[in-house]
Every structure is written in structure tokens, then in C-alpha cells.
């Protein structure tokens, strides 16, 4: 029997501003009945002075603040997981490490594999703990992704249309250790499915390209393949019986619904009514936060996990199955257990309240941000951020508990607490 391992503490940072997706779809002239299939309500929009570093640090800080000095000193690895990197060489982890005031004896690096990055990061951390090379050591895993495309003209907006309503932003910080108070991983219970495919990609700093059909097909193939590999490793695993709840990578809720239906038909030849009831029961809770932040890429499966833990009945411990998928592509199905303590601990992060507190952007404000004039492009050498660009979005609490980007000098990003 191996020792316990998993997520000790967790937080989701949902950004400072949000947009009503229904309003956006109306504005773009998208067909409303079809809109319902997205299962989306709002999305987080990153402000120009919010970048992958600020998202990551703002997600992790409440966790680090809640630790004693001794506990904090045992964070020996910071893994940032992202497809929104700001430099080809220097990792986001270096900035995150600095702004969290962590000890110098720390391994810092960044992981990339599209939206699977968070799954990969978590498994690296879990295996660090299981390997016992540094007994008692902790790893901080932070997924951080923003979708911010400087759209030069109407044509570019048109091309982006298929993913615009669901492209969100968010970061999830997870402290991984041998005290899995939030989520105890089932060690060795996992399955992978990977193959090379060009479904969606980020070929340039401000561009995303993709094929919605191919991406969906790869996702469906992976979902079935990864669960099959999980079943090969875990004797008696049954998709319908083993997991009380499920959390899937969520580009938008409709895609999760499609994948769930695919598995239920493939494995059990289940009828539509049974499939719909099972989806509402076992996947409905996982959409609680995702439908309000949009696709958070590397973090989306963990945004789903947070939603599930915060909203389902956890009087009795439950096993949750997770499916992480990243275009290109690689995927993993794995599992773990959440308890009443998980809910109590996660609720102290007040994720739902943070969602409500975001500034509501008007379409005009959103379009101004989208035009890209204020966005710090990849490779910017020197600049000063305009903190007044959306006056209402700037917090006035003065709590010094939120990090924002202030200036860039000789490529070095300087941040301030506000």
C-alpha cells in the first residue's frame, strides 16, 4: 500500500473582468438555439495588465498565505502549466516563485502540452511525492492560461468565431503533497491515449488556429482510448459504477456532453434518456465554474473538479474520475477521492464569490480590449501599462492582495500588488 498523495490545497483565480456570452453571441449574430448547446454563460476576459504570471500568482497566493513558515519552506518544486507562455526560455515559474516569496532551494519549470499541461503537471508532482526522494516535500502546480488574440480586423474576428464564445482565462493552483486534504489521488490508476494530430494549435504569439471537427474527433477518440487504458490498469473499473462524479476537460459544456454520450453508447449501448440523466447527475456539477469562466485550457479539468467539490454532497467520501485532454494530442484518465474535508477546505477560497465580484464588461469595452491596442505582445521590450483602460475594473480595496503587471523594462516584467 503506497502512502497518501494528492492535492493538499487548491484555488481557482477567475480574473478581474467577465463578459456575458449570450450578449456576445447576439452581438456576433450567432444562432441562439445552437448557443444553448455550448452550455456557457459567461467568460473571463483578461485585462491588459493581467498576464499568465498575475493569474498564476493570484491563484497560488491564498494557498501559500495559509501555510506555516515550515510548511511553506517545504515547497520544493513550482511547475507552471501553460500554452500562454511569455518567453521561449525563461519559465513563468521564476516569476511565480519570486512573487510568492518561496525558498531558493526549489525546482522551477514550465510544462506545455496544450490543455493537457495541467494533467501532466499534476502527475509530475504526484510522482515526485510518491518517489520519496525528498520525504515531506511539496510541489506547487499552477495551470495558467489566457486567450487573448489581438484581432486586427473583422476578418480575423470571423475566423475566430467558432471558439470566441468559449475562450476564457483562469489559473488553478494546487499544492501537491502527502497530505491530500482536497483530493487523494488513486496511485497507479491512470490511462493515457496520445497520437499526433493537427487539431488546434497556437502557431504564433497572438494566434490560434484550429479545426473544430478534427478537435472534437480527437477528443472523442482520446476519451475512449484513455478510459480503455485506465481499465487495463485498474481491475474491475467500470465507467458507470466506479465514479460518483466525473470531471472532463471542458472547452465548453457541449463537448463534454458529446464525449460522455459517446462513452455511454460505446460501453453500455445506453439509451438517450439514461445518458441525459447520468450526465446531469455525474457531470452537471463539474460545469458550475467552467460555464462562468470559459475554457481555461490547462486548468479546465481542475476548474471542473473545484466546481464538483464545491457543489456536490460530500457527506460520504466519493471517487471522482478525471479526463484531461490537450490538442496535438495527449490525454489522460485518472481518479481520486474527495471527502467532506475537501469541501470545507475548498470553500474557504470563496471561488463563487470571486466569480460574482468580477467587473462586467460591456460589449463596447470588450471590443476595445479585443482590438489589441493595449495588449502587451509577445517579445515586448519596454512598456508601461495603462491601469485606467477600463476604469470600473480596477479594484479599489487597496488590500495589496492582487498582483498586476505594471511595466516591462528590457523584457523584464515588473508587477505590483494592488
Amino acid at each position, binding site marked *: 500500500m503506497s502512502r497518501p498523495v494528492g492535492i493538499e490545497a487548491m484555488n481557482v483565480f477567475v480574473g478581474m473582468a467577465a463578459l456575458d456570452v449570450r450578449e456576445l453571441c447576439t452581438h456576433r449574430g450567432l444562432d441562439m438555439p445552437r448557443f444553448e448547446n455550448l452550455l456557457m454563460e459567461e467568460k473571463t476576459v483578461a485585462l491588459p495588465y493581467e498576464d499568465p504570471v498575475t493569474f498564476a500568482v493570484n491563484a497560488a497566493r491564498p494557498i501559500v498565505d495559509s501555510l506555516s513558515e515550515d510548511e511553506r519552506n517545504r515547497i520544493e518544486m513550482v511547475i507552471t502549466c501553460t500554452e500562454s507562455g511569455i518567453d521561449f526560455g525563461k519559465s513563468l515559474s521564476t516569476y511565480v516563485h519570486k512573487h510568492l516569496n518561496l525558498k531558493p532551494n526549489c525546482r522551477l519549470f514550465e510544462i506545455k502540452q496544450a490543455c493537457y499541461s495541467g494533467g501532466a503537471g499534476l502527475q509530475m508532482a504526484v510522482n515526485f511525492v510518491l518517489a520519496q526522494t525528498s520525504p515531506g516535500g511539496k510541489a506547487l502546480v499552477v495551470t495558467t492560461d489566457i486567450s487573448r488574440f489581438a484581432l486586427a480586423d473583422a476578418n480575423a474576428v470571423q475566423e475566430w468565431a467558432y471558439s470566441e464564445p468559449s475562450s476564457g482565462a483562469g489559473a488553478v493552483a494546487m499544492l501537491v503533497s502527502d497530505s491530500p486534504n482536497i483530493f487523494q489521488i488513486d496511485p497507479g490508476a491512470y490511462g493515457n491515449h496520445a*497520437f499526433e*494530430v493537427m487539431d488546434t494549435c497556437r502557431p504564433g504569439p497572438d494566434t490560434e488556429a484550429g479545426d*473544430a471537427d478534427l478537435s472534437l474527433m480527437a477528443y472523442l477518440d482520446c476519451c475512449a482510448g484513455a478510459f480503455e487504458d485506465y481499465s487495463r490498469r485498474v481491475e474491475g473499473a467500470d465507467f458507470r459504477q466506479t465514479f460518483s462524479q466525473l470531471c472532463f476537460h471542458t472547452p465548453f459544456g457541449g463537448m463534454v456532453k*458529446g464525449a460522455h454520450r459517446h462513452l455511454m453508447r460505446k460501453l453500455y449501448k445506453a439509451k438517450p434518456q439514461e445518458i441525459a440523466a447520468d450526465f446531469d447527475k455525474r457531470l452537471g456539477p463539474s460545469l458550475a465554474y467552467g460555464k462562468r469562466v470559459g475554457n481555461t485550457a490547462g486548468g479546465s479539468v481542475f476548474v471542473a473538479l473545484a466546481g464538483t467539490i464545491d457543489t456536490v454532497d460530500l457527506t460520504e467520501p466519493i471517487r471522482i474520475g478525471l479526463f484531461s485532454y490537450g490538442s496535438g494530442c495527449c490525454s489522460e484518465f485518472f481518479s481520486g477521492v474527495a471527502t467532506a474535508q475537501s469541501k470545507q477546505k475548498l470553500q474557504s477560497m470563496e471561488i463563487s464569490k470571486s466569480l460574482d465580484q468580477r467587473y462586467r464588461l460591456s460589449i463596447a469595452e470588450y471590443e476595445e480590449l479585443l482590438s489589441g491596442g493595449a495588449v502587451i505582445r509577445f517579445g515586448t521590450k519596454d512598456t508601461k501599462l495603462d491601469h485606467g483602460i477600463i476604469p470600473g475594473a480596477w479594484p479599489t480595496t487597496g488590500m495589496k492582495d492582487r498582483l498586476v503587471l505594471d511595466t516591462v523594462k528590457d523584457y523584464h516584467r515588473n508587477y505590483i500588488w494592488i
Partner: protein
Amino acid sequence: MDSKQIADMVIAEIRETVPELADQPISPEDSMAELGVDSIERSEVILSTMEKLGLKIPMVQLHGPKNIGELAELLFNKSAG
């Protein structure tokens, strides 16, 4: 089963999946996207047709056809091969 019959199966699945298209004329030259079948529904149409054909291959192998006729042709070739 030839590709014409498979095209009829695909069209029947489209009508099943998207009730709004039940009475609309659909030909093999039509593309599902242009008919207003969204990406999730498109994958369902393909999966149901694969099920009926007993075809067990990765879905990504069925990517590329521009219209229903081309999809039927590809499904036919995969079933035969």
C-alpha cells in the same frame, strides 16, 4: 451496402439528430455545416452511422470530407478495407 445507401443512412441520422431538418430536402452534395448541423451534432451523426455499420476505427480517420457524399464514400471505403 454501397456508398449511396450509406449516404441515405447519414441523411437519416442527420434528420434524427437535428429534428429541425426533418422535412428539409437534403442531398449528398450538401455539407452538414451548411445545413446548420453544429460540430457536436456532426460528430453524433458520424458516430451513429459508424455504429450502424459496425465500423470500429478512430474518428479522426473520418475527418476531411466536404459533403455528405464524400463522407459516405469514405465510410464505404473504411468499411470495405
